[in-house]
């Protein structure tokens, strides 16, 4: 039997406000060396008698995200208490949303091999993050509340995905949206985005919804992809062997590459949601929503369309450039700083080709690449013929490693190409005189030797010759020898 997977995703994204969701403590990204419990106050420590106050900025960022994801924003939103005991949860309940979330009924379009596919988004709601628990070597545990109370947006999709590729396409596109919106730094290593995947399988073409496995706490795209792939395979194997899938919460064991059932009391919850009496229902006026909509930045899809239209890029190149907001910004910044008439298409090629390759080699992101002004200068040097394309690529490599500007490198290393016709004519003549056999062969019809001869000329100039000029001169002198 042929099976298909049915996958829904819950994404927990930190919202990058200056202060926490319900108190004035600053939100600080966990760099790993932050002293524990340094960004904590009586409110986020759950001290007796303290009360939460909603961070309006967090609500605005959540609504903007909802609007970007084509959600409806209901006029009233409600906060609820989600009760469970755990040492990293200071109040014994998490302030979350249950009925009346901030955003409902949206979607996100993703690109698949079969074309564009729409993934429906059920809801997006706000909640506060819990703290962090550290298990010490001596068997004790320590609580760090720096993260407690940081605003989170939980974005819940419908089970509309059918493959690992679709899951990753959805997750990365959502990631890109959140970064575009300035809602999240996108820095996965700091845990600013976490996933939970609901996976079930069924006979292909069926529309049954079978019991699912919920894989909790996935912190990277890699873990997401591997765990979902594993679940799909293992569920199909179970069914084929006549086994039964029961609804279950799973954890991902990264080292063994398998999912394992989560046991223990902390997963058998009746969360007993009820409206938080400390927070009156939040009224969201239409005027406020429209104001936020008007303030939305250009989102990836729109930017991609504009790149294709205005810069004549291919859909593929435009997609590569807009996937990350910083890269798209880098591209447009480079374009704006060009002094020459280099084509936008050529600039795109520089970035998706050489710049990406060097970023990979140097293990850096676009922020580690030479700044757009310097890339523009390099492209200008190639465009105006000061250096040729190959030299340009070598110069860029050096710019990455030394941080020096293209002009500096070209001048100091004497890389400016030779465009002096008289000088080149002499070199061409020398090369032809030095290889009479090849010249004869060429003239008798072995035209492919032209490239070889050209290479000899370039080598004689240490690659600095203007290739276009060399080609012309070489052709002229060879023809001269034919008639002569």
């Amino acid at each position, binding site marked *: 039997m042929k099976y298909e997977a049915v996958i829904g995703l819950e994404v927990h994204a930190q919202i990058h406000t200056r202060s926490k969701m319900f108190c004035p403590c600053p939100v600080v990204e966990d760099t790993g060396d932050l002293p524990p419990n340094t960004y904590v106050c*009586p409110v986020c*420590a*759950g*001290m*007796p*008698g*303290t*009360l*939460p*106050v*909603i961070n309006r900025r967090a609500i605005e960022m959540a609504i903007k995200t909802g609007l970007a994801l084509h959600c409806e924003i209901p006029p009233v939103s409600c906060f609820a*208490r989600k*009760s469970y*005991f755990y*040492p990293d949860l*200071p*109040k*014994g*309940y998490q302030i979350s949303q249950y009925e009346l979330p901030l955003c409902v009924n949206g979607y996100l379009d993703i690109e698949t091999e079969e074309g564009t596919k729409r993934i429906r988004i059920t809801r997006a709601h706000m909640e506060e993050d819990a703290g962090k628990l550290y298990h010490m070597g001596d068997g004790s*545990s320590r*609580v760090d509340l720096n993260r407690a109370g940081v605003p989170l947006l939980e974005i819940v999709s419908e089970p509309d995905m059918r493959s690992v590729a679709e899951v990753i396409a959805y997750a990365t596109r959502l990631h890109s949206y959140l970064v575009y919106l300035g809602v999240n730094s996108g820095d996965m290593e700091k845990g600013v985005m976490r996933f939970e995947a609901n996976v079930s399988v069924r006979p292909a073409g069926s529309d049954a919804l079978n019991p699912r496995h919920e894989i909790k706490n996935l912190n990277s795209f890699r873990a997401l992809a591997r765990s979902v792939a594993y679940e799909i395979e293992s569920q199909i194997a179970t069914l084929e062997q006549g086994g039964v899938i029961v609804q279950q919460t799973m954890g991902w064991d990264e080292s063994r590459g398998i999912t394992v059932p989560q046991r223990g*009391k902390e997963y058998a919850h*009746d969360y*007993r949601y*009820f409206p938080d*009496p*400390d*927070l*009156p229902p939040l009224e969201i006026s239409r005027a406020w929503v429209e104001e936020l909509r008007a303030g939305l930045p250009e989102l990836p899809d729109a930017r991609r369309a504009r790149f294709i239209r205005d810069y004549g890029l291919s859909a593929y190149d435009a997609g590569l450039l807009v996937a990350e907001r910083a890269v798209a910004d880098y591209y447009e910044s480079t374009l704006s700083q060009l002094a020459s008439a280099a084509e936008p298409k050529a600039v795109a090629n520089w970035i998706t080709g050489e710049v990406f390759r060097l970023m990979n080699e140097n293990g850096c992101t676009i922020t580690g690449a030479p700044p757009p002004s310097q890339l523009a200068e390099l492209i200008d040097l190639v465009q105006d013929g000061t250096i040729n394309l190959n030299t340009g690529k070598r110069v860029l490599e050096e710019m990455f490693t030394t941080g020096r500007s293209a002009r500096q490198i070209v001048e100091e290393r004497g890389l400016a190409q030779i465009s002096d016709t008289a000088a080149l004519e002499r070199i061409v003549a020398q090369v032809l005189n030095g290889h009479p056999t090849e010249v004869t062969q060429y003239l008798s019809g072995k035209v492919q030797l032209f490239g070889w001869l050209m290479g000899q000329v370039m080598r004689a100039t240490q690659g600095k010759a203007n290739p276009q000029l060399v080609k012309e001169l070489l052709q002229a002198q060879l023809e001269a020898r034919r008639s002569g």
Partner: protein
Amino acid sequence: MELYSLTIHEARSLLAERKISALELTEAVLERILEVDNAIRAYLTLTPEEALEQARLADARRTQGDDAPLLGIPVAIKDVICTAGIPTTAGSRILENFIPPYDATAVAHLKAAGAIILGKTNTDEFAMGSSTENSAFFATRNPWDLERVPGGSSGGSAAAVAADECLGALGSDTGGSVRQPASFCGVVGLKPTYGRVSRYGLIAFASSLDQIGVLAKDVTDAAILLQVIAGYDPRDSTSVNLPVPDYMAALTGGLHGVTVGVPKEYFAAPEVMQPEVTAAVQAAVGVLADLGARILDISLPHTEYALPVYYLIAPAEASANLARYDGVRYGLRVERGDLIETYNATRGQGFGPEGKRRIMLGTYAWSAGYYDAYYLKAQKVRTLIRADFDAAFGQVDVIIAPTAPTTAFRIGEKVADPLQMYLSDIFTLSMNLAGICGVSIPCGFDHDGLPIGMQVLGPAFGEEQVLRVAYAYEQATEWHLRKPDDGRFRK
């Protein structure tokens, strides 16, 4: 006249005229506490050194021309209200050693107004109770009869005011916890409208019902205290951003043009009602009529549902509010082999029987499958109770009702029967469910010489009309001037 028996407004005049100093006044009250509190046991914590220091400071401030409204007035704070640097136990073992690093907003207002904090008064654990017997530490005694309870849960504050162990006090009222002890102790107890006084720093029992209130020797003092603590607080999202009126201006003494509603449901509960209470309140209505008020019989038809609704909503909210006492960050921790055992031991030893009872009731009422039947249904009935009052206040300015069905009962009498205990709040629960305001004032004594209280109730933010009627009644009667015979409890 002894300084400790002064009202706030009397002391204020004497202080302003420099006839007494804040230090003399504070010393007098502290001495009084030493004399009587062994018998009354109103205080859980006393802060005499800090109080004397504050008194000296108040005198210095006055010399510099400061005349803050409570400058040099010694007051007591119920121990469910946080005081920076002073233990705040909520009457519970689980917070026995808890010292908050912050003041409740109401306390901060008192301090800014120059008040002197004498200490923290006894309370039923987490304000859950009607007799102060649920305090984890000891029971407080009623100054009118030491064998009887002072009421609760603000029994410590009410007894302290009645026994002249402070000039006024803060309490909290979730279902009558200011008004009922005021009634039992023969003092004035004001429960402001929900949202009128910030709840920030009030240890939560039932968040949608809790409100800080005041206990005072007379209506004028209640108005003075309310004036200081009322107002919007950005740290409490349920506090309401409305201007605070001049409550003293409401104390005119006249009742012309005032319509007083008398709800039949509050006089028709014979099985729990002490006849002397009904008679005293009816007589008080007669006094109001004589003063020029128009009396109107009204109905609050959903009154009988207040008790069951209250005992679904309050425990439900309490069970979440009390979840934070887990021994992880502060308070009692009873360390055991693993996490779950540590939780169980900490909470098992930290909470008393009433706290546990309400946590269980509440957890049950909103667990999966029961939420709609209990919690949601209770919220719907709560809306009906609120609508009863809305309709009534369309016709009348204030409503008169007994505060409690009986006068103070004996210590131990109802401990074994929680349902009987809950019944002592049947006349005060509705106002918290509706979020309206009310004051309990003395309106007579029973055959044992125990005080009887009556409530003057007003709509949300109707504190002015409530105080106006209460003040007019007080001026026309002398109940508030009677004091318990302190020969019985003075050392």
